[in-house]
């Protein structure tokens, strides 16, 4: 885990709220890094939505099998930042003319 992750909890929270909405009965403010997506009110489809948007924004490709294994926000951030660090996303980013833009 790098000391200065490229993608932060705050950025992830913002994308998650926009693409999957927010359950008003659950407090998403504060440090949610070690909370599970399930605790935060997000099902597997919401996490796939999140992963899709992160892929577009950062031009990376996350393995679906790794995405479904991400239980907590920290798990997901580690997956994203490891993938970014490996530069594994160059192909995926180059193949999508709209990478970097969000829907």
């Amino acid at each position, binding site marked *: 885990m790098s000391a200065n992750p490229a993608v932060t909890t705050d950025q992830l929270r913002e994308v998650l*709220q926009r*693409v*999957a*909405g*927010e*359950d*008003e*009965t659950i407090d998403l403010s504060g440090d949610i890094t070690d909370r599970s997506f399930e605790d935060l*009110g*997000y099902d597997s*489809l*919401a996490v*796939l*939505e999140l992963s*899709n948007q992160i*892929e*577009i924004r950062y031009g990376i490709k996350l393995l679906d099998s790794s995405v479904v294994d991400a239980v907590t926000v920290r798990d997901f951030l580690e997956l994203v930042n490891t993938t970014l660090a490996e530069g594994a996303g160059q192909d995926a980013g180059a193949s*999508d*003319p*709209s990478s970097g*833009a969000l*829907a």
Partner: protein
Amino acid sequence: MTGLAATVEPAVTGIGVHAPTGVTVADYWRNTLAGRSAIDRITRFDPSPYTATLAGEIRDFDPSPLSGRLLPQTDISTRHALVSSDAALRDAGITPDDRDDFELGVVTASTSGGFEFGQKELQKLWAQGSRHVSGYQSFAWFYAVNTGQLAIRHGARGPSSVVVADQAGSLDAVGKARRLVRAGTPLVLTGGFDSVLSPWGWLATLAAGNVSTSTDPKRAYQPFADTAEGFVPGEGGALTVLEHPDRAHDRGARVYAHISGYASGFDPRPGSPRPPALARIIRAALADARVGPGEIGVVFADAAGVREQDDHEIAALDTVFGAHRVPVTAPKTGTGRLFAGGGALDIAAAALTLDSRTIPPTPGLEHYPCPTRLDLVREPRELTTPAALVLARGGRGFTSAVVLRGAR
């Protein structure tokens, strides 16, 4: 038990409506009895490029009871269904605490699924690429989605299903719900919703060629009139709680009406010398309810607004009841035709009619130009015989009928 399961008549113990003329039962019923119409020029999108510009829109919808988690994954028709389901269960006085999850089933009908949601995702597909399409498109467009979303919202684990039978669908949903009650599921939430009010939905609807192109809201949808020139689409629908009458009785529930009869069929193929299915289906529904034509106090007509279909409906009513022998009403002229929501809203209106003993009028036909063709109810009228027949037909021959009886 009140008798053989096969003769159990489920009680309507809760109603939730989302109609252009009201998003609560109280508002809807007051406006319906007053003969108010919500048909107006479309505001949801610019209708000027289209041949038809009038619709029944729900303009006072409040989605705030819905979680923010639901908004990115629901079409407007599903939001109408979700909010109506809360209202129907509340009206029935049923809370999660006084039922087992397996006691509640859900049966809904839809004609087109989530048109507006689907359009937005298709626009993303072609403008931005497939990776921009929401994962929620996988179910949000689908005509089965309302049953799923309602079951999740209310923890309904009883038998549930979806009926797709065009505009007759929600009457078939009532028939299915009745079978479930008879088979041992004591509570079933049933109804239907649709909205075609997006450019894609509108274009697809206009393609059928039977939508009124009139720009006069007062004259655009005049079923049974010589001036009929098609129908006006509307959005929304209704849900009712059907409950085993013993359960309703034991808990002292308010009963609006009972579902007594149901029948469904299909027209012969085009060009066939055989008559349309409607008269046969009406007779079958009356036989199923074990009532004669003289015991029906009001007919909620399908009211196609297309001359040939209107003629068929009048002929069927004349055949079964005798000419001019039964009061006929079509409050849907004030909402437009709601597709799968239309039959469900008529079921709600029929239950309210039986409960209040007042037949609502047919808005816009106060000066019905052809009074000899039907005994059309043009102002609120006392219901003298406590049973109602609801009719619905869909494109290409779907035909269904439901008989409701007053609470005893």
